[in-house]
């Protein structure tokens, strides 16, 4: 009798983990975006019985690489930027996705469907200004360079990415031709030359939270900025305005690191996050565009006006060329470092 009891206790203690609530570690970039994901995805998904443990990171792919290489993967679903999604897939850092468990590819934006990552939202790097302070609103990217017409400092992201594209557009290159021009030696020279013109008037930013702060503090009159940050500042009562044409839009992707422990549950989570109803809730909480095209139908015109994917805002926008930056990024960023030193 005593023995059976002991056996039962032992058996029960072994079986216990199976009864424990399932957990998923979902990694995001923090800030307003993480809050919107919490409302739209984490909280409703937890009602299905799986606990979400949110983790913030800064996009450091080195962490994922180290986890995969040492085979100690503790992250289940990770939000990554498009160049990292493509590169990580090539280098075997992420699992290939089974779309039959995620949803119908036809409902998603074409750019959202890749082998290892599914696009979660569309964001855009745009020009913005403070509506309370600036009297003459900019009407082109050439105005961003024109310090006589609009005197004052310009905020730009510290690095080559986006800035070279904007420089070419300011120099008269049509958005559709930007990457064709930038791909040539002369085109890159032209972009850096144009950037040199503005160099004394540039105030560089490092983190996405900085440019709206620069605008509010009056440190800069015009800045490049991620559109969601402007939306977040306006929700706090600011009157920051976006100039949409020439904005560079891109997607963030959800990926599963190779060897992640809860692959099935992770796929369920991704499937949940790609449903139109949940994506609509997300877009209501932050001005990033849904990747499930069916989500747009349920959004009000007021919300749509701030999304990079709405037809008016997307009209003259430029899609970020992942392939180009995967090839040229390291060389161009190094050239940028050399350029900054001169």
């Amino acid at each position, binding site marked *: 009798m005593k023995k059976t009891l002991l056996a039962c206790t032992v058996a029960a203690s072994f079986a216990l983990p199976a009864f424990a609530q399932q957990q998923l570690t979902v990694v995001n970039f923090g800030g307003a975006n993480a809050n919107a994901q919490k409302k739209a995805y984490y909280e409703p998904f937890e009602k299905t019985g799986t606990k979400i443990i949110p983790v913030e990171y*800064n*996009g*450091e*792919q*080195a962490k994922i*690489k180290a986890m995969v290489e040492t085979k100690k993967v503790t992250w289940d679903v990770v939000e990554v930027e498009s160049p990292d999604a493509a*590169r990580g*897939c*090539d*280098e*075997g*850092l992420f699992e290939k996705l089974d779309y039959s468990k995620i949803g119908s590819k036809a409902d998603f934006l074409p750019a959202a469907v890749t082998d290892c990552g599914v696009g979660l939202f569309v964001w855009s790097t745009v020009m913005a200004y403070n509506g309370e302070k600036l009297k003459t609103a900019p009407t082109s990217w050439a105005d961003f360079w024109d310090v006589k017409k609009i005197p004052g400092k310009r905020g730009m992201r*510290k690095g080559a990415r986006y800035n070279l594209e904007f420089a070419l557009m300011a120099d008269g290159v049509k958005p559709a031709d930007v990457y064709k021009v930038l791909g040539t030696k002369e085109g890159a020279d032209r972009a*850096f030359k144009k950037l040199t013109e503005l160099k004394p008037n*540039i*105030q*560089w930013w*490092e*983190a996405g939270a900085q440019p709206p702060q620069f605008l509010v*503090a*009056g*440190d800069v009159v015009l800045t490049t900025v991620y559109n969601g940050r402007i939306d977040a500042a306006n929700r706090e009562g600011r009157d920051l305005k976006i100039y949409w044409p020439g904005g560079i839009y891109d997607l963030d992707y959800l990926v599963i690191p190779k060897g992640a422990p809860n692959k099935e549950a992770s796929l369920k989570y991704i499937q949940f996050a790609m449903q139109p109803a949940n994506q609509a809730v997300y877009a209501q909480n932050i001005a990033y565009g849904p990747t499930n095209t069916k989500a747009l139908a349920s959004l009000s015109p007021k919300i749509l006006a701030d999304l990079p994917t709405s037809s008016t805002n997307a009209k003259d926008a430029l899609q970020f060329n992942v*392939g180009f930056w*995967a*090839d*040229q*990024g*390291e*060389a*161009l*960023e*190094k*050239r*940028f*470092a*050399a*350029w*900054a*030193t001169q």
Partner: protein
Amino acid sequence: MHAATSVPLVSAEAPPGELRRALARAEARRKWRAFALTAPLLVFLLLTLLVPIVALLQRAVENPEVANALPRTVRALDGWNRKEAPAPAAYAAMATDLGQLPDSSDAGALARRLNTEIAGARSLVMGAFRALPITGTPEEIKARMLELDPRWGEAPYWQAIAKNGSRWTPDYLLASVDLRRDVAGEVERMPADQRAFAGILLRTFQISAVVTFFCLLLAYPLAWWLSTLPARKANVLMILVLVPFWTSILVRVAAWIVLLQSEGLVNRGLMGLGLIDQPLALLFNRTGVIIAMVHILLPFMILPLYSVMKSVPPTYLRAAVSLGSSPLAAFFRVYVPQTYPGIGAGALLVFILAIGYYVTPALLGGADDQMLSYYIARYTNVEINWGMACALGAVLLVATLVLYAVYRRIGKAELSLG
């Protein structure tokens, strides 16, 4: 030092040999005990300091990707003139090598490695890898690959493969001092638009030197004043020095942003006093970086100075004055030389800490205020080019060690002068 206490008492009549042996035994025991006590620390240092440094240095010269993935291609390129497109046999070897890769991640690693050598190689290699299998006679394979991507007919991509056939490479280390190997393997300077790191290393040392100088300038009078105060007052003031020391660097950086921005407290104050008309540019440039770094590193200068100054007897200064020296001369000729160890320790500490600064310049500096660590972090996290990151780390390590050696020489010279 106190070994005598543990020596077993030996009677005076005992033969001298036995005494010597007993002493030697005691001495050996003492040594082993000392070793056993320090062993945990030694093991800890070995694991946490030496092993990572060796791994870092190894990564800086390791070059396994091409040699692992393309052994046949590297052999086929042996004896190639390295000027025009190689013979069809090289194309066939490439197709075979790519076909034999155990995993797609090996192709990704190869593509990444070649892309650091020549921009564009990533899409070229991955394109061919996705188009596999490519079969047929060598001529057919060559035609097929050229049709796939005409860049396969360009020599530079093949040169990158031929150059990286060996498992070890000096390329990362060369690149970290703006040098490279040309097609023939001769070392030459980088083209002007890729020359960055020598300037960045110089900038790193400049910023650190300026920060050290201002720390010394501010800390010396303060530490001197603290050392003259009665203990109770000095302790209270020391807490004021230490409170910022215990506050997170990020918080202090954010506080400086609030103070220094164009409508911040400092600019408003100066404009209110009528000293300036336009706000000064104190942020997102070199000024902001130096102000914040001096503030953050100040305690590392104050503490060693204070501890040395406490041990300098105030009577020396009085004696010098009473013997007819002017107070200023007495201060500089009698007091200051006695604080050299504190100045040396503080300056070295501040300088070496400053060299590794990353967050403060990233948040408060412009594009031309970034220090070497910023680029090390970039190569680690963004470009995932760990070879380059380790090479830059090695350069920083060596530069620091050289500097330390110079300091030791000067430090010794000073001691012998005294």
